[in-house]
């Protein structure tokens, strides 16, 4: 069944963000489907939540999740152990990066280790979380403040505070050492705390 795909069928798909060839001939499709439904699907909400916070858009999150699910189904045999959530979220994040590269072909979109260097003005206002939030002085709510955070910081907050992942799994999802997760999380928290205090004081004044 490898290599027999038809271009016609491929074109039916609404968006192909992270297409490619990942299917393993050694598992049959029904077994793959069962494993997918048992192990990956329970984390669908988490997948959508991460995609939605990364893209900050309903339609883009939809595309990213659809592609991530397809990849997860095809690559299900690579999932081992009990870290299905981190595994699926890593695929979501990779699909998001591919999505960015396609939609912002001129922006320098780099992967995890270079986050601070990412230069895509539409999406990354600054690599300094504190400065990003000060610039976004109108952010009255936590949603607005989170949206204003540079992506490298936003994603660690989402994964830690909303998804409750331990450091080790966050490191797996993002593909960076635990020390980097910790320092990003600390800076993101510090920025959010200051922003929160400023907002509270602003309301009092």
């Amino acid at each position, binding site marked *: 069944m490898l290599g027999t795909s038809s271009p016609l069928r491929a074109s039916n798909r609404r968006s192909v963000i992270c297409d490619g060839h990942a299917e393993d001939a050694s598992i049959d499709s029904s077994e793959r489907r069962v494993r997918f439904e048992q192990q990956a699907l329970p984390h669908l909400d988490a997948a959508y939540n991460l995609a939605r916070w990364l893209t900050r858009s309903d339609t883009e999150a939809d595309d990213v999740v659809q592609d991530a699910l397809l990849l997860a189904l095809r690559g299900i045999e690579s999932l081992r152990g009990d870290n299905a959530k981190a595994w699926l979220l890593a695929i979501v994040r990779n699909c998001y990066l591919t999505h960015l590269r396609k939609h912002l072909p001129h922006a320098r979109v780099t992967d995890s280790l270079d986050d601070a260097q990412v230069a895509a003005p539409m999406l990354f206002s600054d690599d300094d979380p504190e400065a990003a939030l000060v610039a976004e002085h109108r952010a009255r709510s936590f949603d607005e403040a989170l949206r204003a955070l540079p992506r490298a910081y936003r994603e660690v907050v989402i994964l830690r505070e909303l998804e409750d992942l*331990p450091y080790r799994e966050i490191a797996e999802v993002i593909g960076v050492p635990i020390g980097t997760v*910790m320092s990003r999380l600390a800076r993101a928290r510090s920025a959010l705390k200051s922003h929160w205090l400023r907002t509270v004081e602003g309301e009092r004044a």
Partner: protein
Amino acid sequence: MTCPDALLLDAYFDRELDAAGTLAIEHHLADCAICTVAHAQNGSLRSELRAHATYYRAPSARRQAWLDTLSGSQPSPLAAPFANSLAGAQGTRDTARMIPGLWRTRWSKRSYWTGAASGAIAASLFAVGLLFSPTSPSTNALASDLVDAHVRSLMSQRLIDVASSDHHTVKPWFAGRADVAPPVDDFPKQDFHLVGGRMDFIDGHRAAVVVYRHGAHIINVFAWPAQTPAFNSMLERNGYHLLCWRDGTLNVCAISDTAPSELRTLQALMAPSSGSRENL
């Protein structure tokens, strides 16, 4: 009373510390109002986020649409033709990289590759080239390595392997362990106190690390043998400053959360000649 590093306090808050580390922080919190406030703020922030930040659940209508698409996709209608030479190879590699653990799984399945058309061979050759090409780590990778090693040293109990403020003790200690004889000195007059040394691993080399204390800051100075200079100028990563220079055949990098000017002062003390030249 010395407060623990902020990262350590966060790790305690996130329940990432072992029993001994947890006890140590609890002990400290009992006495320290500043850290108690910081810890409480972490808790408030989390409660506020969980109460007020939106958790976007997968919309139920879309959920069904996704699953329908998946059903329609069996078997694999989207896969680029495998024999499609480099384009196929590129797709294979990219996809494999996007799924954690897949690369390793696939690599071991030789029949999978040999069963495919010649494009698959191109794919694997291409991949081998990628895996083994001797590219030196980029500045970013090296900087991240150094930051991580620095943070690790502060987090764990192994900031120093040999504790001594006497450079006549520290320098010989390296002799039997490191590939290099790093510059070791104590500069108490300038408030750079030699604390000790340890071994670490940077850029594929065993590196000698000389540890200084400057005020409340710890400065790790890494030294390792390298053919090419690391990077020039001062770098900032995750709130830490890195300053590298060349000492003979050694790359020397100082890293700390202290001000950049303090690192330059230490550089001038350790390598009086390098400051007047340029930072390599």
